[in-house]
């Protein structure tokens, strides 16, 4: 790993001698991905670091990218932000928007099915915390959440996702 890192670094340095600043930034991003194979990185050590409330725009675009695994089209974002204005209870309208997304076949294609969740509940819980909270669960959270899912045969992936995406912590960053 170290050897390949060094090789790429040297190659990059050579390239940078004849490229622009913009090019330099792009190459560094590629370099990081190759070396560390980053997919999802916990950016919070604990939820206490989250003290800023997401704006409606951040909340809706975050929901979309978390569920569709792609950026939200600007017209969809505009429409949903306007729609959100038309209802006074923001928890209610957040629920409706989330439920509509969770009903989408495109979203259902991106989430694990219930049997996958049951195969390895701990891994599923860890994945949920990383995907939605950008942190790892504490030992207690991992244990308790796993128990809750294991203890309820009717609990579905959608139930768990819905709870995460409507939770207070998801509203903050």
């Amino acid at each position, binding site marked *: 790993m170290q050897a390949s890192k060094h090789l790429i670094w040297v190659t990059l340095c050579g390239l940078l001698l004849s490229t622009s600043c913009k090019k330099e930034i792009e190459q560094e991003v590629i370099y990081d991905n190759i070396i560390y194979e980053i997919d999802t990185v916990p950016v919070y050590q604990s939820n*206490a670091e989250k003290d800023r409330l997401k704006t409606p725009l951040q909340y809706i675009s975050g929901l979309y990218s978390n569920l569709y695994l792609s950026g939200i089209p600007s017209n969809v974002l505009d429409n*949903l932000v*306007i729609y959100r204005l*038309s209802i*006074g209870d923001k928890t209610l309208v957040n629920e409706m928007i989330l439920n509509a997304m969770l009903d989408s076949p495109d979203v259902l294609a991106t989430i694990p099915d219930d049997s996958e969740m049951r195969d390895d509940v701990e891994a599923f819980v860890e994945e949920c915390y990383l995907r939605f909270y950008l942190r790892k669960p504490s030992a207690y959270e991992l244990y308790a959440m796993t128990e*809750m899912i294991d203890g309820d045969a*009717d609990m579905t992936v959608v139930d768990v996702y819905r*709870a*995460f995406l409507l939770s207070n912590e998801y509203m903050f960053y």
Partner: protein
Amino acid sequence: MKRRKFIRNTFMATAGMMTAPYILPAGTISRSSGFRLANHVVLVVFGGGIRNQESVGQQYLLNQAAGPGGNIMPNMLTGAQPTYNLLYTPWETAVASPLATKGTLYKHMRYAGGPTGHFNGHTAVITGNYTSDSLNLSANPVMPTIFEYYRKHNDPVASALNAWWMSIDLGPYVYLNYSQDPVYGAKYGGNYMSPTTTFGSLGVDYFSTLNTMHPEEITRMQTIKSFLDANFDRSVTDIPGILNSDENRQLIQDFMLQLIQGDIPVEYPLPPGIGLDQMTGDLSNIAVSWKVLQQFHPELMVINTTNLDICHTNFSEYVKYLHKADFGVGWLWDKIQSDPVLANDTIMICIPEHGRNAVPNTIPDANGLFAYDHTGDENSRDVFCLVVGPPSVVNQGLVVGSEDAPEGETIDVVPTIAHILGFKDLIPPGYLPGSILEAAFV
């Protein structure tokens, strides 16, 4: 009249000392801390500005020397309609007799302070306080709204399901369901909807196939959400906006989906034989407001209309919209009287946010009629107010106030609603400069 008022006031003073619930004239038991005249109030705010000349003045085209006078609001006002030079197709009335015969008409009332702007006018009616040039259009009002007074000063605190602000437009109006006041605020705010958006094309596009959640799904979601929330030290109350209880939130969501998906049929405020192409935004707002009234029987609802603002550029269309809005109000009152919970236990107050200028601008419409703005002249501060209710509570067929001696101000609406719903005396001093519209009540 004076003797009756004395007896009533004496009774109110006695009732104020009582702590137990008591029977209302309409036969229902009050839940509030004080004496109630009725258990439901519907406030209709005519946004856009209506000149008294075309409403209670019944001048129709006289003012422009272009035709006859006449009453173009036959559902609300008594008086003969114009018979020629009609700019509109007359609709048959929704009520057997005009609402003015079922209540008290303040023929000339003052919008006495602050700019004659739409948001200023709305804010004055809904908060009971005039505003200034510095009113922030992107923030909740500084002074509490009627929704907050109502919810906070009921024992137990009234749920948000009982207080609704139904606005045709978004813009600054989305901020009028609660204030920035630290004693009141979002915690006591009313539910807000803008039906033309909530149930318009966006609502249909995104939610027409969405299923309501099963109770078991909700329970499972709540179980996990409770756990997650218990492990995060910021509460949902940090999130701006009003809150319903989990149960009420679900009721509202189910109602919305049923309405969007057609399971609750919409009734259109149109006379027989008039097509849907004649619907206006104002009438759509009234139609959905009626569904909310019918579904939840809220104790307080505020509805607005704004189509009348077309008067800046098109006087003929303004007349048409006024005629239609009048029908919508009559239709709504008729519907209210058909509901077993609301009938004979509802007081409706209708008031324009402000008037419009005495002198037209220079913009003629297709009929050569000139338009009117609202730039703060005395005429734009002259409005009417109609208070309609059961004869045991509201004086019937009474007209008060004249051009020379106007009676009441638009900021009197909030204390009047507080009086009707029995919590006026619980509002701390200094909040409401207005007075109760006493003359309206028996």
